[in-house]
């Protein structure tokens, strides 16, 4: 029995086979228990989407709220109960689309909460519509035309907003995911971790894992200095691949 099982409850997730969110759930359980947190001192707040069912699969306190609004609910809770670890687990639709306004202002208010975006670049719960992080030109199964709009780059967005902790992880790289989750949770301000968590059913098939493994590049192995905002900006302007690791830490 792994230590993570202290945090994980017996409920069977509704996620499809091959969903990246399984890895995120495993990673979160390991990260929290690794930090020695009591599950009852942790509150997971989510919005709506496949990813937002995550709180219900844990022994932490959880609130699966409404679409896009996890951040202000979490902020209100944290201000009321500063002793709790408050973590938002949400999807790219929640955070970069319907609830996008709250992201900027959460960064401005800088409450010590953690945001894990489970970014699959698709609306999975509603079966395959484009999301703000779907690359332009992608042919979605629900659309007549390939995606016309340019996509949001979560890292560039957060850097421009002035977020104090910006990182990206890949769900299938469990060890690195856990490490980055722990750093984000321990960060004393608002922290952001974008987790590439594939949806093979509605975007890219199982081949997407192979593609991500090939195209991700670890920032810290590449000698990136996370304290340097200019280096972060330069890196994003001319990426060698999909960056994983801490992009910026103030």
């Amino acid at each position, binding site marked *: 029995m792994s230590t993570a099982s202290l945090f994980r409850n017996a409920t069977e997730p509704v996620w499809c086979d091959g969903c990246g969110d399984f890895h995120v759930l495993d990673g979160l359980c390991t990260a929290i228990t690794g930090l020695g947190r009591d599950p009852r001192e942790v509150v997971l707040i989510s919005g709506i989407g496949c990813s937002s069912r995550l709180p219900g699969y844990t022994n932490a306190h959880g609130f699966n709220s409404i679409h896009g609004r996890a951040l202000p609910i979490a902020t209100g*809770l944290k*201000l009321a109960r500063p002793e709790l670890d408050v973590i938002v687990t949400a999807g790219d639709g929640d955070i970069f689309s319907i609830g996008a306004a709250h992201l900027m202002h959460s960064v401005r208010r800088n409450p010590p909460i953690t945001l894990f975006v489970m970014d699959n670049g698709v609306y999975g719960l509603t079966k395959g519509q484009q999301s703000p992080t779907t690359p332009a030109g992608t042919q979605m199964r629900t659309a007549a035309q390939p995606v016309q709009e340019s996509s949001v780059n979560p890292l560039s967005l957060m850097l421009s907003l002035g977020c104090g902790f910006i990182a990206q992880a890949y769900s299938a790289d469990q060890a690195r995911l856990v490490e980055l989750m722990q750093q984000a949770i321990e960060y004393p301000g608002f922290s952001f971790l974008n987790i590439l968590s594939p949806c093979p059913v509605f975007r890219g098939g199982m081949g997407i894992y192979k593609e991500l493994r090939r195209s991700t590049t670890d920032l810290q192995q590449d000698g990136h200095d996370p304290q340097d905002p200019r280096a972060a900006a330069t890196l994003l302007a001319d990426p060698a691949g999909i960056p994983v690791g801490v992009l910026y830490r103030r």
Partner: protein
Amino acid sequence: MSSPGSPPELSIGIVGSGGDGVVLLGELLAQSAVAAGLYCYMDKVFGPQIRGGESSAILRISREEVLRSADELDVLLVLQWADLARFSDVLSIAGNALIICSSEDETSPADAGLPAGHHGPVLSLPLKQLALEHGRSKQARNMVLLGALSGLLDWYPEQLSAVLERRMQRYDERSRENNLAAVAAGRDALAGWQEGPLPVLPTADAAPELVLASGNELLARAALASGCRFMAGYPITPASEILEYMNRRLPALGGTCIQAEDEIAAACLTLGAGLGGVRSMSATSGPGMTLKSETIALAGMAGLPLVVVDVQRCGPSTGIPTRTEQADLNLALHGAHGDSPRIVLAAAHQADCAELATQAFELAGRCHAPVILLSEQQLAQGLATLPAGGIPDNTEPSPGWPERSIGSAVQVQLTGLEHDDKGRPLSDAASHEANALLRQARVDKALGSVPALQHGALEAELGLLCWGGSYSVSREALALAAARGVTAGMLCIRMLSPLDGDAVQAWLDRQQSLVIVEMNHSGQLHDYLRSRLDLPEITMSLRRSGGRPWRLAELEEFLVSHGLIPQALEARS
């Protein structure tokens, strides 16, 4: 003692442009009258632009409690005639009204809409010149007017100078001197005027200790006294004063006040704080209420306490943001998707804003349900007089919401999905039905805890039924009916949901005829009651859109024209 024949009360209107200090002038007059032991009511009516544009204050001063402004003005102070035209629907000027205005005005009183029948004295002063000369600024015109009026009417000299002194504390020495010089110049300018009828002010026999407060201030103070330690809001007229007040007070009480990025975030921040066991609220107006409706439904689904104040203004859409209306009843009662029961309270007058805010917190905590508290621009920004002890002032440590459980040993899982008692999602029809019952039952726990205000005869020829700010004019109509020999009663429903149907029906059954009074176009209370209760055979809906406060004359005309009360006798012999 007032002299024989002196009016029982006095009504004063002030008009000018935003930034002219109209409201300040009104407040100085009101505060000094209240300090002298008189009751004062002051409406603030603004043009649609909120900042800039025209501005007016309407005062009514009386030896008895007054809850609304009078139908007609006895005195009119005009900073700019052009602004009067924009208030012609609100200000009705008595034929013999005393008018003090500027002699430098380019607009003539007639062009500004002064009724041709006006035959009272019109005193004009070089307001601007006196302001510049003595007050060292054009801005001091309101002080010149204050001096002119207070000289003519011998306006509570002792109280006025104390009120002025207190007000000037925030100014530097020089501005203080300039303002006082402007007041003196106004007083001197009219010192020689000795003709025509002057309305004589009533004075108090034994001065009770009274204070002046707006509905918004009273509501905010009652929220603090009820243990509210968190507020999130978004600036919106006419609710902003609540946010501003809480912002000044909460930090010192260990609380938090946040100006959110939008109305939705304000509701969600409030809900989140409530989830953590902290008593919290958000306040808004109609447009903000529509944005908050998804969060209100979530509170109902998750069984969380949530207090949301809706200070109504003219809608729909941006409407007339500065003017009063009672048209959000449908929104408050039904504004959500699905079956989404909630507790809905509506304040009847300024002191009731405090009373019902206290109730709102008690009920949200006890029922674990959303509570919507309806106020109105007129109550929210208008000033009323209360006994000095009538303002809630308790700042004891907050008890929080009862049964706060997040962070305790028992796991809390909540969701907006239909769910079982452990917060696990469900999708079977039987559970959905059972939970709908449960959500209604939570709200029904509040049944009967906020009784309606009942006045006059119980068994009546004429029953007046109202809600919210229509209370004050209905009470005066009740007195009018009684004075004309009609047995009349009235009921003002303060808890609209859950509706205490049995109690209201019992009252209705004793009315021979019924008039439902409300300030909205569609008759929202009328329709609501008709759908739930048996209304008397003779039931009439007296309603109109907002935009200006009720006049007693409107009710009188309605009641007379429908044969419900006799016409006033033209001359008593």
